[in-house]
C-alpha cells in the first residue's frame, strides 16, 4: 500500500468508521425487497457483514497517527465550531475498536437463526453506526442525535422476537431513556445559554473561563453549569445503568434476542459510560468523582445480591452487567493514578467476557429449551466448545487467574486499596464467584431436563467442577478447542448431538481467544491501553488544542494538534502497573473463591431459594423508577456545589 492511499485513509478514518456500518445497513435493507424466506434474503444477511470488515483495517492504519495526537475530521469541510467535527482520540479509538469487533461477532452469531431477517440486520448495523458516532462526535448535540439513533435501533431489537416480555421491556426502556434524553437536552440548553458553544473543546475553554463547575456558592454561571453537567450525566446515566438508574436493564437485557443481549451488555453500556466520562472530563467536574466512587461500589454490591437471587440465567447475567459497571465506575471515581487503566481496562475486559457469556448462555438456552438455571442440565453435551466458552467466561468474570477479569479486577482493587469503598467491592467479588458457581450447574447434572428442585445440591459439586473446567479452558486456547472432552465424559443424550453452527462457533472461539490473550498478556495490554487513553484533546482542564485549524490544505481534514492541553507528553502520565501475577496476589484470590463456594452452597439451599425467589421478583414500578431518577439528578447537581463550598 502506498503512502498516499494510507494518508487518505488515516485522514478520513473517523467518518469511515461511521460510514462502514451504514453501508452494511443499506446492504441489509436491500434484502427487504426480496422474499423474506428465500435463499437470496439469507445471502444478503451474510453480505451485509462484509462492509464492516474494513473497519479493522481503518483502525489499524490510523493507530500510529492517533498515538501522536487526536485526529480531527470536519464534516463537509465546515470548520469545527460551525460544522460537525469528529474527533478520533485515544478513548474514541478504543471504543471504536470494541464496537467494530463486537458488532461483527454479534452479526455473525445471528446468522444461523431464521427469525433474524434482513430488517434485523439493518437495525443491528444502524445501532453500530450510531454507537460509532456517539464515541467519535466532537459536540454534545451530535451526541444527542447519535444516542437517539442507537436508542431507536435498540428499542426495535429488544422487542424483535415479539414476546410480551420483550415488548414490555422495550417500551419501559423507551420511556426511561426518552425521559433521560430530555434531561440531556435540558443540559445542552444550559450549556448553550451559558457558554454559547456546543463543541466539546469549546466547552472546556468556557468552563475554565467561568471558574469551573460549581464555582462559588453565589449564584452565577458556575452553579448553573453544575446543573448542566448533572443533567447531561443523568441523561447518559440512564443508559449506563448504574444504581439508581438500573431498573430497565435486567428486563431489557434478559428478554432481548440472545445476540442482541451480548451487544447491549458488551458495548452499549460501555459506550454510554465512555460518553459520560468524556463529558465529566470536558467539564472538569472532579467533584463528581467521590460520588461516582460510592455509586459504583454500592452498585457493584447491590446488583450482585440481586444476581444471586435469580434463577433465570440471562437475568443473572444482566444483573452482573450492572454490578461490573459498578466496578468500572468505582475505579474511575477513586481518582488514583491507576484509575484510568483499571476502569477502562475492566470496561474492555468486561465487554469481551460478557459478550462471550451472553452468546454462550443464549446458545445454551436455545439448546436446552429453558431459561431456568435449575432446569437447564448438561447444555454443552455434543458441543464441547460451548462448555469451554461458558467456563472461560465464568472464570473471567469471577476474577480467577489467568483470565482477563482477574487482571483488571486486581487493578481495580489496587486503585481502590485503602478507600472506605474497598470492602464493598471485596464482598461483591465473593458474590460474583458464588453466582457463577451457581450458573455453572447448567454444564453438569444428571439429565437434560430436571424438575425444579433437583438442582439444589448441585452447587457444591459444581464448585469442584468449575476448577477442572478451568484447566480445560486454559488448554483449549492453545490447542484446537474441539479436542476437549465433555467435563463429565458420560454418554450423550440423543438430542444433545446437535453441533454448533460454524458462525456461532467462530464468534465463541474469537471471544475465548481474546479473553485469554488479554488475560495472559494483561500487563502489556493494559499498559498500551493506558498509553492510548492518554491521547485526548486536553486532559482534564487543558482544552483548546482542537481549535487550532489543520495545517493540511486542499480538503485534507487531518489536524494534528502539536501539543496536548496540559500535563506534557502522554508517555509521561503513564505510570507503572503492579505485577498482577505475583504470588501474593494469586494467593489472595483463594479466600474469595472459597467464600464464594460457601455462599453458592448456601444460596442454592431450598429454604434460601424460596426467600431469594421473593427478592428476585421485586421489580420496581415505573413510578418509583422515575422518582429515583429525579433524586439522582439532584444528587449530581448538588455535589459539585457542595464541594466548592468552603
Amino acid at each position, binding site marked *: 500500500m502506498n503512502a498516499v492511499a494510507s494518508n487518505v485513509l488515516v485522514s478520513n478514518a473517523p467518518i469511515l468508521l461511521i460510514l462502514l456500518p451504514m453501508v452494511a445497513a443499506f446492504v441489509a435493507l436491500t434484502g427487504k425487497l426480496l422474499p423474506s424466506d428465500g435463499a437470496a434474503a439469507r445471502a444478503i444477511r451474510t453480505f451485509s457483514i462484509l462492509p464492516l470488515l474494513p473497519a479493522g483495517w481503518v483502525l489499524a492504519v490510523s493507530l500510529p497517527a492517533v498515538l501522536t495526537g487526536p485526529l480531527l475530521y470536519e464534516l463537509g469541510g465546515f470548520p469545527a465550531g460551525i460544522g460537525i467535527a469528529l474527533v478520533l482520540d485515544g478513548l474514541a479509538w478504543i471504543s471504536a475498536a470494541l464496537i467494530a469487533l463486537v458488532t461483527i461477532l454479534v452479526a455473525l452469531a445471528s446468522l444461523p437463526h431464521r427469525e433474524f431477517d434482513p430488517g434485523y440486520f439493518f437495525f443491528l448495523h444502524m445501532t453500530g453506526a450510531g454507537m460509532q458516532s456517539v464515541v467519535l462526535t466532537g459536540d454534545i*448535540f451530535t451526541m*444527542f*442525535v447519535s444516542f*437517539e439513533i442507537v*436508542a*431507536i435501533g435498540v*428499542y*426495535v431489537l429488544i*422487542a424483535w422476537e*415479539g414476546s*410480551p*416480555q420483550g*415488548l*414490555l421491556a*422495550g*417500551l419501559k426502556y*423507551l*420511556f426511561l431513556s*426518552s*425521559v433521560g434524553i*430530555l434531561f440531556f*437536552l*435540558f443540559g*445542552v*440548553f444550559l450549556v*448553550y*445559554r451559558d457558554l454559547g458553544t456546543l463543541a466539546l473543546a469549546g466547552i472546556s475553554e468556557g468552563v475554565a473561563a467561568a471558574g469551573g463547575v460549581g464555582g462559588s456558592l453565589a449564584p452565577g454561571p458556575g452553579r448553573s453549569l453544575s446543573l448542566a453537567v448533572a443533567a447531561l450525566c443523568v441523561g447518559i446515566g440512564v443508559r449506563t445503568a448504574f444504581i439508581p438508574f438500573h431498573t430497565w436493564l435486567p428486563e431489557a437485557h434478559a428478554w432481548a434476542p440472545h445476540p442482541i443481549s451480548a451487544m447491549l451488555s458488551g458495548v452499549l453500556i460501555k459506550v454510554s459510560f465512555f460518553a459520560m466520562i468524556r463529558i465529566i472530563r470536558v467539564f472538569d467536574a472532579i467533584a463528581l468523582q467521590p460520588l461516582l466512587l460510592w455509586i459504583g461500589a454500592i452498585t457493584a454490591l447491590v446488583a450482585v445480591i440481586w444476581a444471586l437471587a435469580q434463577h433465570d440465567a440471562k437475568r443473572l447475567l444482566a444483573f452482573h452487567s450492572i454490578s461490573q459497571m459498578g466496578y468500572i465506575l468505582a475505579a474511575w471515581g477513586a481518582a488514583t493514578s491507576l484509575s484510568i487503566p483499571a476502569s477502562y481496562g475492566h470496561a474492555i475486559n468486561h465487554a469481551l467476557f460478557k459478550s462471550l457469556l451472553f452468546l454462550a448462555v443464549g446458545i445454551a438456552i436455545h439448546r436446552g429449551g429453558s431459561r431456568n438455571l435449575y432446569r437447564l442440565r448438561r447444555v454443552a453435551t455434543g458441543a464441547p466448545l460451548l462448555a469451554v466458552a461458558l467456563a472461560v467466561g465464568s472464570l473471567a468474570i469471577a476474577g480467577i487467574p489467568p483470565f482477563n477479569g482477574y487482571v483488571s479486577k486486581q487493578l481495580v482493587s489496587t486503585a481502590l486499596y485503602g478507600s472506605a469503598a474497598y470492602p464493598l467491592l471485596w464482598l461483591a467479588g465473593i458474590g460474583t464467584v458464588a453466582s457463577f458457581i451457581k450458573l455453572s450447574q447448567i454444564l453438569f447434572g444428571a439429565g437434560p431436563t430436571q424438575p425444579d428442585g433437583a438442582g439444589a445440591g448441585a452447587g457444591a459439586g459444581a464448585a469442584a467442577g468449575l476448577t477442572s473446567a478451568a484447566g480445560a479452558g486454559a488448554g483449549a486456547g492453545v490447542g484446537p478447542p474441539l479436542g476437549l472432552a465433555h467435563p463429565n465424559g458420560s454418554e450423550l443424550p440423543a438430542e444433545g448431538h446437535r453441533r454448533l453452527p460454524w458462525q456461532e462457533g467462530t464468534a465463541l472461539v474469537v471471544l475465548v481467544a481474546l479473553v485469554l490473550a488479554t488475560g495472559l498478556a494483561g500487563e502489556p495490554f493494559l499498559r498500551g491501553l493506558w498509553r492510548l487513553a492518554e491521547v485526548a484533546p486536553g486532559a482534564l482542564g487543558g482544552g483548546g488544542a482542537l481549535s487550532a485549524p489543520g495545517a493540511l490544505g486542499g480538503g485534507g481534514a487531518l489536524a494534528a494538534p502539536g501539543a496536548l492541553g496540559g500535563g506534557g507528553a502522554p508517555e509521561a502520565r503513564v505510570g507503572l502497573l503492579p505485577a498482577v501475577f505475583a504470588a501474593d496476589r494469586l494467593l489472595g484470590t483463594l479466600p474469595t473463591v472459597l467464600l464464594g463456594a460457601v455462599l453458592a452452597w448456601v444460596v442454592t439451599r431450598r429454604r434460601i431459594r424460596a426467600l431469594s425467589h421473593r427478592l428476585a*421478583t421485586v*421489580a420496581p*414500578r*415505573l*413510578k418509583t423508577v*422515575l*422518582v429515583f431518577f429525579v433524586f439522582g439528578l439532584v444528587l449530581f447537581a448538588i455535589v459539585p456545589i457542595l464541594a466548592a463550598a468552603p
Partner: protein
Amino acid sequence: MAWYLIGAIFLVGLWGVIADPNMVRKVIALSIANSAIIMLFVYYASLSGEGVPILGGEGTPVDPLPHALMLTAIVVGICVLALALALVYRLYRLYGTLDMREIERRVWSESE
C-alpha cells in the same frame, strides 16, 4: 412568565409519564415533555433579536442555531413517538388493555 409556563408544561408531561397508567396517554405525555424542551430552545432564541435570520432581513436577526437544533430534535421525537405507539399497539393486541400496571402484572405472572 414564559419560563415558568415552559417549566410547568415539562412537569405536566413528566407527571403523565410517571403517573398515568394508560400507555397511550404516557406516550402523549412524553411528547408534551419533549415539546416543552423544544419551546425552551425556541423561546430562548427568540429573545436574541426580532428579525428573521435571512440575508437582507430587518432588525437584529434572531440566533438561528437553536431552531436548527430543534428541527432535528423534533424529527427524532417523531421517530420515538411512532415506535412507542407501535410497541403499545403490539401489547394491546396481545392483552386487550392499555393499562400498563395490568400488563406488567400479567407478563410477570406468565414468565414465572
